[in-house]
């Protein structure tokens, strides 16, 4: 502490004084020394004259200066006070350490004085003070120099005089070579030369001290001075003949007048006085804008840029393409792109075969040459033939150079740049997992029995509940009863008109067949099967109808004894052609559609009471009707708690484009409306459980409706290539079938689960083909019905046959 503080204080004390002359001298000397140093001229021993008493002298002297400086400068009081305190301390220290002063000085002499520039850099505050003090002088004569002026001299002297450490003046110092001193200080005392180091010490110093090369000797004091980087720079500039200041010597000339036409002309006319006054108009405008901004009426653009800014930004778009890209923060996609990038293919390195003088084993034999020539270019292992030349200079020009270059370019151009991440999706996986048809057996697969006998298109078939007999109705004006197992025609009933519909009465204890032909519905007792049932049926019918009954729409006629022999029992005459008929599952009610197309009228009949009723007067085109009873759900009971009937009785009416479901108790309101999204509904069937409905249409679609879920189809099947004629459910097996004019019967697995959360499983399992196309009518398969107990399906075709598939 004691050793370092005086030096610090002394430095401060010496600062506030500048002399141009002094500066120049110092620099000149330093430059001389440096030059000699750079040319590797060893520093002369003679010049090593030291001034050991220099510091204490300066110190005492500096104290007064400091005060002056403090008062003279505009530095704050606080700082001056501080400096005063500092001085007092210093004085004390100096007084105390007066005995040690010599030693201190010696140490200092040994240690090279720290560089001038560094000193300056460490004391910016003092610097500024100095700049202010010498403001006029510096700015007037050499502004750039003044700023970079070395304050080193102030360490030694604060006065305007010349170097006062050595008062010998500007005399050649060689004169003192023979003396132990180098000159005289301002008190007349001899300045003793500093002890000179011998050659070994110098060498060691040169080796050890990294600053040795820039250490110079002050001729006047004989002390070593280490030049700072700034000093060196100045010296270098001087050597090159440049100005030593930091500023540019020749600034670019800006011409006010140019050949270019300017937006605002410059004129030599003096600006008017008014132009110096602030514009009231602008002020008004600005105040308005300020107000608007304050009130939030307009929002200042966040990144408001002047056109010049933009131009600058544009310029910034240039970037060094060779800088490593790691420095740039990558987006995820950019990183992926980098990861997937494929580097350009490399040219194979040349091998021995490419040599102008390849080893003998690389040269081709005659056989190999022949083979090489015979091979296709693509198949060749080497695309050239290795040749041997005695010397490199005999090597001819490479005749395939252009081609090779071109191919290389092609390689580069055509090589994939990126590894593309492809998702390999097996199309099989996209198909929903359906069980194999094999696992869904039994279902009909092959034709087993053909029922031959009809002489025209078979329009309708119906299987008796017992499964022993099959009824069919045909355009040849007959209805036939067949034995299912053998294909034997048991009975033939001749009708006056082509038969459009046959249907067994669903009641088990009745042997009654309804046949719709022309404008009448005939009820027959075919007298096949159980005789008791047949006779019971006759008894019952005799009770029901004793004489003819005529209604508003229809008339019920009892069969004459002659007709009775033929099997007829009751005839229901309509006013128009009967297009269709449907039994109620109880076998008492049945519905007919009278008339065709838009004139179709739905009539509901009751056989036991011989009544006919038209439930809806205006309904539109009725294409099919279906009755269904199903066990009531809780929801249904909530709706109508008064109704004790365990069944909910519904009637499904297929109109041209929709299927309406009515509750038979409330015929005036539609309880549900199904929209199969087709142009013409041709047929429908209801699942035995009653929750699902199939609707077929002439536009080739079969739609499966889940009545619990939606009015829209749960699934639409477009397996047929022509209009669908009939759809039907199997009563026991989870099967349904559809037939179409394309000649096919498609049997599908349609599993309905008791679990309400599980959707029905629909799998088409078999397409049954066999019916021949009827060219005249364009019809093919017209009706399809399942066997009531076996997984067999019957189809009636326009080829006059009925077929059984098992």
């Amino acid at each position: 502490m004691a050793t370092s503080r005086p030096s610090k204080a002394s430095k401060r004390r010496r600062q506030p004084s500048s002399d141009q002359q002094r500066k120049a001298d110092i620099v000149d000397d330093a430059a001389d020394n440096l030059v000699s140093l750079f040319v590797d001229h060893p520093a002369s021993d003679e010049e090593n004259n030291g001034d050991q008493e220099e510091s204490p002298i300066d110190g005492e002297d500096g104290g007064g200066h400091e005060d002056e400086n403090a008062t003279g400068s505009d530095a704050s009081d606080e700082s001056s006070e501080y400096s005063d305190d500092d001085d007092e301390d210093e004085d004390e220290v100096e007084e105390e350490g007066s005995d040690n002063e010599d030693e201190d000085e010696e140490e200092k002499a040994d240690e090279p004085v720290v560089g001038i520039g560094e000193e300056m850099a460490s004391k910016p505050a003092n610097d500024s003070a100095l700049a202010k003090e010498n403001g006029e002088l510096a700015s007037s004569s050499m502004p750039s120099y003044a700023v970079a002026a070395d304050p080193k001299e102030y360490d030694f002297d604060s006065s305007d005089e010349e170097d006062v450490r050595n008062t010998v003046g500007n005399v050649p110092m060689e004169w003192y070579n023979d003396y132990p001193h180098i000159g005289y200080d301002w008190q007349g005392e001899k300045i003793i030369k500093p002890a000179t180091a011998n050659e070994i010490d110098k060498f060691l110093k040169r080796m050890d001290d990294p600053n040795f090369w820039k250490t110079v000797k002050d001729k006047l004091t004989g002390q070593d001075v280490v030049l700072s980087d700034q000093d060196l720079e100045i010296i270098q500039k001087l050597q090159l003949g440049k100005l030593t200041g930091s500023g540019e010597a020749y600034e670019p000339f800006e011409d006010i007048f140019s050949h270019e036409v300017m937006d605002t002309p410059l004129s030599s006319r003096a600006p008017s006085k008014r132009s110096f006054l602030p514009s009231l108009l602008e002020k008004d405008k600005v105040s308005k804008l300020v107000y608007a901004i304050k009130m939030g009426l307009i929002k200042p653009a966040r990144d408001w840029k002047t056109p010049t800014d933009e131009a600058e930004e544009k310029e910034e778009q240039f970037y060094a393409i060779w800088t490593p890209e790691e420095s740039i923060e990558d987006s995820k996609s950019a990183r992926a792109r980098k990861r997937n990038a494929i580097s350009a293919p490399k040219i194979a390195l040349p091998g021995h075969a490419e040599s102008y003088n390849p080893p003998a084993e690389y040269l081709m034999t005659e056989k190999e040459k022949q083979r090489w020539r015979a091979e296709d270019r693509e198949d060749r292992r080497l695309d050239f033939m290795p040749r041997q030349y005695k010397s490199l200079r005999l090597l001819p020009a490479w005749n395939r150079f252009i081609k090779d270059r071109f191919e290389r370019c092609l390689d580069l151009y055509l090589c994939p740049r990126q590894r593309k991440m492809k998702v390999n999706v097996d199309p099989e996986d996209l198909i929903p997992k359906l069980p194999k048809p094999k696992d869904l057996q039994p279902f009909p697969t092959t034709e087993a029995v053909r029922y031959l006998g009809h002489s025209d298109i078979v329009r309708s078939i119906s299987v008796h509940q017992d499964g022993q007999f099959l009824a069919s109705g045909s355009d040849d004006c007959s209805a036939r009863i067949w034995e299912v197992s053998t294909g034997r025609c048991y009975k033939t009933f001749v009708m006056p008109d082509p038969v459009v519909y046959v249907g067994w009465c669903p009641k088990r204890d009745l042997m009654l067949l309804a046949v719709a032909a022309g404008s009448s519905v005939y009820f027959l007792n075919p007298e096949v099967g159980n005789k008791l049932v047949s006779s019971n049926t006759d008894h019952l019918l005799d009770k029901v109808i004793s004489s003819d009954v005529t209604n508003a729409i229809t008339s019920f006629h009892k069969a004459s004894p002659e007709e009775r022999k033929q099997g007829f029992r009751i005839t229901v005459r309509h006013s128009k052609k009967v297009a269709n008929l449907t039994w109620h599952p109880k076998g008492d009610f049945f519905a007919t559609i009278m008339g065709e197309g838009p004139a179709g009228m739905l009539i509901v009949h009751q056989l036991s009471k011989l009544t006919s009723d038209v439930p809806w007067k205006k309904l539109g085109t009725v294409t099919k009707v279906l009755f269904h009873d199903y066990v009531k759900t809780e929801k249904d009971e909530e709706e109508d708690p008064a109704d004790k009937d365990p069944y909910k009785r519904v009637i499904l009416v297929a109109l041209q484009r929709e299927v309406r479901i009515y509750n038979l108790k409330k015929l005036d309101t539609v309880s549900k409306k199904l929209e199969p999204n087709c142009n013409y509904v041709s047929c429908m069937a209801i699942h035995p459980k009653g929750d699902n409905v199939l609707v077929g249409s002439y536009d080739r679609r079969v739609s499966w409706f889940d009545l619990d879920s939606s009015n829209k189809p749960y699934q639409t099947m477009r397996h047929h290539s022509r209009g669908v004629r009939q759809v039907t459910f199997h009563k026991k097996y989870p099967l349904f079938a559809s037939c179409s004019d394309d000649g096919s019967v498609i049997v599908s697995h349609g599993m309905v689960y008791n679990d309400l959360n599980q959707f029905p499983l629909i799998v088409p399992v078999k397409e049954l083909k066999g019916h021949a196309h009827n060219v005249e009518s364009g019809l093919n398969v017209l009706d399809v019905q399942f066997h009531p107990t076996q997984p067999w399906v019957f189809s009636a075709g326009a080829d006059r046959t009925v077929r059984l598939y098992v």
Partner: protein
Amino acid sequence: MDEGEGTMEPQDSYLQIRLHTKSPRFAVTDIPYSIPTTTASSDLNLLVNQLLGESAVENWIPVDFDFLINGDILLTSVGEYVQQQQISSENVISIEYIERAPAPEPDRSLEHRDWVSAVHSFDDYILTGAYDNSVRVWNSRDGQLVLSHAAHTAPIKGVCWTTSSSFLTASHDQTVALWNIDEGGKNVSPRAFFRGHANSVDALSLSPDRKKFCSVSWDKTLKIWSLEDDATEEIAAPADKKFKGENRKNLTKTPEMTLPGHKEAVSCCAWTGKTEIITGSWDHSIRIWDVELGGVSRQLDSSKAFTSLSYSSLNRTVISGSSDRLIRLYDPRSHEGSVVKLGFLSHSGWVSSVAWSPNNDHLFISGSYDKVMKMWDARSPKAPLYDMAGHSDKILCCSWSDRNLLLSGGADSALKVFSAARV
């Protein structure tokens, strides 16, 4: 054809066989032979005939043999068979040879007025039932129609001789009738009407002791009737009087036992023992009934409706025809392994009728809706022995008479008779 020849060729294409037979008439010395793997049964036939010819005292008349390896008739070459069955070719293969059943000869065609639905023969007389409600008796020797009788009011579904002069008919009109042929052999008189079925009677079968018979019907029941002439059985007629004359009133008989249980129509039945009946039904099951206990003793389930079955008292197995192309062989006594012991697949339509040979425990015939009757050997399930074509429509019934006549009636209103030589 001896061992010396065999060593000339590479060893792997030869097989060691040993020939044996059960009939002493055709026995050859029991030594192993080495034969090429390509040897077919015709080559083996030559070999056996040559061996027999060498050892025969007189001139040997060649006989056709069938060759059995492990009970299967050899249809391919020996090598292929060994490869298929993965029998080690290192061992000596034991081949049994049997005299081949000779091809049945078409005998004659008996023309009917309508579809022939049932046939049964006894001695020289063939009984047929047809869809024209008539029953006919034919002499099989000269093919003459012995008698014809309109026995029912609906198609006849089953016929059966009870004695040489009386027979049973089952019909769609829900009755079974027992008829007596009068002394002259030209007239038929009813002896009994068995009423009780509520639907068409589809089949009937006579018990082995000929004292009872059973009938099965579309009404899902099996009924057992007595043939004994007990007056006590006769009771008042049931409700429908329409179908019987006054003189038939006292001829009505009621069932001795009614066995309900099938869920669907019962289509075929056969006695398998003194008190055991086997029935096949459209509910996809075969049931074995114990008559004394009056219940089902065993049930064999299938996946198809049965159309016919036949029981052989010689090998005690049942073959069945069903609503598919497959003939199935069941062993009612076996409780192990799969229910169906063998499947015979060659027909292309429903198998409507099957019948075991009454005197050969391996042969049976089958008639099908594909218009062909086939003769099978139970040991060769892959292919039938013979196809007997001739029908122009579905075959509805077939029978193998004890006189080795193969009878088949069909929807072409003809009964085709083939004569098979006794093996």
